[in-house]
Every structure is written in C-alpha cells, then in structure tokens.
C-alpha cells in the first residue's frame, strides 16, 4: 500500500500539475508509465493474496472444521487472512481497472484530463481504503500475544461502557448494562472477549439503525446460566434476525450488510470456542435479537 501511495504522490508531482515546462506528450507518457507501475503493483499484491487462496477456499467449504476445531489459533489466522484477501481484492480490482482505464484514455487522440485526474484520485483513495480494511480486520483478530488470566466479567464489560456509550449515542440508541452480582471470576483473555462483545454491540447498533422505532435499546447483561456458566448477553429491540439468515449467520462471509466482511460472527464464535464456551443467537422477547456468550467456570483445583 505504501508503494502505491508513493506512486500516487509521484503522479501528482510530475503530472500535468508540475513540470509545466515539459511538452504535453512527454508528460502524458510519463504519467502513463507510472500508471502502469501502479497497475502492476496492484496485480503483484493480488498475487500475494492469491497464494492464500487455497486456504481461503478450504475455509469457506469446510465450516464443519470451524465447528469442530477447538485449538483454533491457526484457524483464526486463516480466517483473518482469507477475509483480508477477499476484502482487499475489491479496492485492488478498482485500482487496477482505474489504472488500465487511465492508460487507455491517455492513448486516445484528445484525452479528457479532468476525467483521468478523477480516476487517479480514486486510485489513491482505493489504496488508502485497502490499508483501512487491513487495519480493521487486524483489529478483529485476537492479539498474537494473548493473555489469559482470571477476570471479573462485570469489570471486563464495565471497561467498555464509555466506548459502547458513545457508539450507541451516535446511533441514537440507549445503552443499558444489567450486571449480575453473583459471578465468579473466570479465566479468559480480556481483550478477546471485549472484542467479541464490541462486535456484537456494533451488529446490534447496525441492526437498529435500519429500524423505525421510538426507543432503540441495546442491553448488555451478565448472569449465571441455568447450566452454571457465566453468560454475557447482548440484546437489542431491533428487527431481529431473519429466520432465513439465522441458520448461516455464523458462517464465514455470510453478510447482509452492504459494508460487512461477513466474518464478525464467525470470528467471534471462534474466539468464544477457544475459551471452551459457546456463542448462540436467541430471539429477544418481545422483539429483537440476543447473542449469548457462555463461558465455562474454571476447573476446580
């Protein structure tokens, strides 16, 4: 991405904006050469990701593996790589196509420079977008040096209050926490579990954004489950999950959002399962959706 940005800066410096002393044709040739470099760079990057393609196809096909695998550190890495590959291909495709188009447009007898300039700006913007996607997906990934330790689940949730509060406010949603008082400490990776909770809250906020409601509400609650596990539930009063989607919403790449990766729930479930727990969806009564994370108590002794 850095090299693309550099190439972009260079285009601006030596395109028809700079070096005005040069004859037009020469400058166009120069720009064309740089555009080609950009296009080739995009193809090379795509090639890098293509090497991971096998792993990706494998992941999509064998969700059963997701179901079984408990020791899933590797799986997490695979899911992240696959999603980066897929998501980044969109801006890369746009970059390559814009660059090719500019190249062809500049070869026309009387090129429309305004149009070409707009395309070049898009190339830069898409390169930045590709970088953002990688950053966003990295943030979904659990930290490499994971830190498991005993924790008070309520405190883990409480630390998120400000973050959730401001997010909820921005969406016109009321946030409420209902925390049980009788919870034992359990061993967990704080950052990972917080990541899952935040992810579920974001999903809820996005679902609520589409709903026409007087009061929009997200509730994060904790309790002992009937089976004695520690449960964290994220509930909303939005439209709920369509029964058609409910069956496959934990599958990688299944998304109903226009800007989603379709990986949030898949990764969340993977993280929770790595804790020996479960992540399930329940309809929220009377309306909306609930996602319950259940984490086992530490083995005695």
């Amino acid at each position: 991405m850095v090299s693309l940005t550099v190439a972009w800066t260079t285009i601006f410096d030596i395109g028809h904006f700079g070096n005005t002393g040069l004859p037009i044709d020469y400058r166009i040739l120069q720009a064309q050469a740089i555009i080609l470099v950009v296009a080739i760079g995009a193809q090379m990057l795509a090639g890098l990701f293509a090497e991971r393609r096998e792993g990706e196809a494998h992941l999509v096909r064998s969700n059963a593996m997701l179901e079984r695998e408990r020791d899933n550190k590797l799986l997490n890495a695979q899911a992240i790589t696959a999603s980066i590959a897929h998501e980044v291909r969109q801006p890369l495709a746009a970059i390559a196509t814009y660059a090719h188009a500019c190249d062809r447009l500049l070869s026309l007898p009387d090129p429309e420079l305004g149009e070409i300039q707009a395309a070049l700006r898009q190339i830069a913007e898409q390169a930045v977008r590709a970088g953002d996607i990688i950053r966003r997906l990295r943030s979904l990934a659990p930290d490499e040096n994971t830190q498991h330790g005993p924790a008070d689940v309520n405190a883990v949730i409480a630390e998120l209050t400000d973050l959730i509060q401001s997010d909820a406010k921005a969406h016109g949603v009321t946030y409420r926490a209902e925390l049980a008082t009788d919870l034992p400490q359990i061993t967990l990776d704080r950052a990972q579990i917080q990541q899952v909770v935040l992810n579920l809250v974001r999903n809820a906020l996005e679902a609520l954004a589409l709903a026409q409601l007087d009061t929009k509400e997200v509730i994060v609650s904790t309790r002992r489950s009937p089976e004695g596990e520690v449960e964290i539930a994220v509930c909303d009063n939005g439209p709920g999950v369509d029964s058609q989607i409910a069956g496959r919403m934990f599958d990688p790449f299944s998304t109903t959002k226009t800007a989603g990766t379709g990986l949030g729930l898949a990764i969340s479930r993977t993280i929770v399962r790595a804790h020996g727990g479960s992540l399930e969806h329940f309809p929220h009564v009377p309306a909306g959706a609930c996602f319950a994370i259940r984490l086992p108590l530490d083995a005695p002794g």
Partner: protein
Amino acid sequence: MKEPSPIVFVVDDDEAVRNSLRLLLKSVGLAASALATAREFLDTYRPNQPGCLVLDVRMPGMSGMELQQQLNIRGAVIPVIFISGHGDIPMAVEAMQQGAFDFLQKPFRDQDLIDRIQRALVKDQTNRAELKERARIQERLTSLTPREREVLTLVASGKPNKVMAGDLGVSQRTVEIHRARVMEKMGASSLAQLVRMVMDLDEPGASDA
C-alpha cells in the same frame, strides 16, 4: 426496426469497482450501464436490449448467482461474465454449469475482461439471431393448415410421398400439392432445410454453448 446498439451492463455493489469498470469500458468505446444491485438490473433490463452482463458474485440482497437463476427462469439469453473477489472454485464451477459465459477473479487484467466482453457480445448477437430465426420459423408454422402440418411432420420423419398418401388416405398427387405448399409457406428451398427447421423448433435452446 433497427436493433439497439449493445450495452455492457455492470452489476457490482462496490462503488469503486463499478465506476472503474465504467471508465474502462468507456476508454475502449463500449457503452456501459453500471448498477449497484441485482434487483435494479432485473427491474430495468429489457430483453430486446443486446449486450452482456458483467456480474459480481457476492452481493448483499440478491447475489449474482441468484440473479443468474432469475435470468435463466425468465429465459433471458444475455451472456453473463462473473467477476469475483473469491478464489472459490466450486462457485465458479456452479456458475459455469448454470450457463455463465465466463468467470474472472478480481483483480483482473483489462485485456482479459475486454476480450471476454467482446466474445460475449458476439455470442449475444448469435443468440439473438438464432432466436429471431426461430421466431420466424414458428410464425410460418402457424400459417400452415392442420393438414399441411400433418404433411410436414411426415416429411420431416422421412416418409416418401407414396407412404404418406397411404397414411393420410389421399392421393399421391394431393400429397405432392400439400408438400409444395408446405415448402413454400415455410420458405424452405430444400427438404434438408425444411427438416433442419423442424429439428430446430423441436429442441428449444439447442444452440452451441
């Protein structure tokens, strides 16, 4: 009536991909129409518009594959070139089995796409010519009298006039007259041509892939 000139339809939910494709198509002088959703395409597409469809596989709402199924159900002949961000081979195989014209993984080389589009447009033209021819034959067929239709079926199945005369209980001379009328009405200059017309009609969609 002059046939409208071909349009390359692009359906991709990614705005940047969509716009870049539109510009690329413009740069090679192809008329393009870029849409964000499969639904928009279905709602606006007129079957008599020649062209081809460059279609993203995975989109929120109706996916590219679902759009292809819808088009198949409606009997649309527009060739579909799938573009996908996934290196998902089973998906590509399925799309091809459903009659996709081609499948390209993002990002692609411009020439690869343009070559495929050119071929798809040729294919579309062939499809349309075949459909038109079929409709013409069908129309001529309806101008036949019931008896002439009977004669046509018998001729096509290779029966000599003498046998037909027996089958229909008429004179050989009458059969000859009917037969000449059938040839004339169907616009067939030879028996072979007449037989081919009947076979074409018997096998709807039996064009070369």
